[in-house]
């Protein structure tokens, strides 16, 4: 079974080819060499998806030595995402599916992030599990009971965790993207240097609020001055990072215990954070919970996870009609 995956929900144009459970190729536009595509690869814009999609598909076929006629199904992100961007991928995928007369699979982007965890070979991961999806755009705790059976137990009510990293990095003049910079500085810092308040959400024990955290950082830096902040960068970063990781840890493990789930998966770009990995691994070990971190290449937006979800849909005898439309606010369940 060979599935061609297409992802164009936001910034990235991505094309992947999955053969059974092996990724033959997973191309992401931001990783392309600039000179190959006439100098600049802009980060965003749906018209760029259009321009890049054809190049990427051809390149994916060439690199994997697979011809279009060998493709068994086309899997494309349907939502959530930007309408204009989603439509490009969806229309392209429908066209291919119609022309090749093969099944068309419309995939939920968030479900793709969850299914990305099955891409690592011999991961030994099985349903059910608890998934913490933590990225720039999303922060959710999902009870993954089975394929297609999801329960969102908690989510951010304002900023995503990745955004909290990024905006603090801006306050501290660390550039963009900010997450990796804060992680790096934190390695030589004292996480107890400053206590950033861990916000609780009213009437919920499992939702997150990260918006107040950046405000705390802003006022701290305004009060003490940027010079002071620059002089204490490692300690400030470590303290801030500790607050985020602490909030994620508290709610996630609370849910794991309450729902009696002994397998935990961390998905999304923030899963690459080294402190998060250490803290979560330690707590999981103490509680006898198995923990999985997907490979970093499948943590950010990519088409491999869309193809993998498509494969699972086929296994469950689910296909989509060519009439499905893009849904910018598509819910997970």
């Amino acid at each position: 079974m060979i599935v061609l995956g297409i992802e164009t929900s936001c910034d990235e144009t991505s094309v992947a080819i999955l053969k059974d459970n092996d990724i033959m190729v997973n191309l992401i536009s931001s990783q392309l060499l600039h000179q190959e595509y006439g100098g600049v690869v802009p980060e965003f814009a749906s018209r760029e998806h259009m321009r890049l999609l054809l190049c990427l598909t051809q390149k994916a076929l060439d690199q994997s030595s697979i011809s279009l006629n060998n493709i068994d199904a086309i899997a494309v992100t349907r939502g959530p995402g930007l309408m204009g961007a989603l439509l490009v991928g969806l229309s392209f995928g429908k066209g291919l599916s119609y022309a090749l007369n093969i099944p068309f699979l419309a995939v939920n982007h968030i479900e793709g992030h969850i299914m990305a965890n099955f891409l690592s070979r011999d991961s030994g991961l099985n349903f059910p599990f608890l998934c913490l999806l933590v990225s720039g755009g999303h922060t959710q705790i999902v009870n993954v009971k089975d394929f297609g059976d999801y329960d969102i137990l908690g989510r951010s009510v304002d900023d995503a965790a990745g955004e909290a990293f990024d905006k603090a990095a801006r306050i501290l003049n660390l550039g963009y993207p900010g997450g990796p910079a804060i992680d790096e500085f934190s390695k030589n810092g004292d996480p107890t240097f400053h206590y950033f308040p861990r916000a609780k959400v009213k009437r919920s024990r499992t939702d997150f609020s990260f918006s107040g955290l950046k405000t705390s950082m802003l006022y701290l830096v305004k009060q003490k001055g940027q010079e002071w902040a620059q002089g204490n960068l490692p300690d400030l970063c470590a303290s801030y990072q500790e607050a985020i990781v602490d909030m994620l840890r508290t709610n996630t493990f609370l849910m794991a215990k309450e729902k009696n789930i002994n397998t935990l998966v961390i998905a999304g770009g923030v899963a690459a954070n080294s402190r998060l990995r250490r803290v979560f691994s330690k707590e999981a070990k103490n509680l006898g919970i198995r923990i999985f971190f997907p490979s970093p290449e499948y943590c950010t937006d990519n088409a491999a996870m869309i193809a993998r979800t498509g494969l699972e849909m086929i296994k469950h005898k689910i296909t989509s009609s060519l009439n499905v439309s893009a849904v910018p606010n598509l819910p997970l369940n």
Partner: protein
Amino acid sequence: MLDLVTHSAEETRKFGKKLSKCLKAGDVVALVGELASGKTTLIKGICEGLDVKNQVESPTFTLMNEYSGKYSIYHVDCYREWRLEEWLKLGINEYLYGKGVTLIEWADRLDEALPNGTTHIFLNQEIEDENCRYIAIDARDEIEKCISLMGFGNLR
């Protein structure tokens, strides 16, 4: 121009909820203010007032969130993508001149593209009291009048 001060995030949200009652289909609200000045909080209030049931989250990374309420609501964030030409390529005009209500954070980046009749909201925080927000509103007469009739703001 209207000026007002809110004293907590809760008050900012409540003001947004009231303000929403002055908006109608096709309206664009452009919010300008630094990090942590209350843009998302105000938008949460507006969405609440427009009967949005979806979770209103910051679209900083997703660039735009869509909600359904009394109208289709488009929550746009130009923090990460600040180039006007990229937004035009993304089709921002379809939202700015569409039938829903479009709420834009970091809207100064789109200044040249904003339609006449856009409601401009400027938010400022003061270092003396970290909970206070100074809010200035520059909108069509009917909207300014509607807001002041609700007991908010001092007409300049």
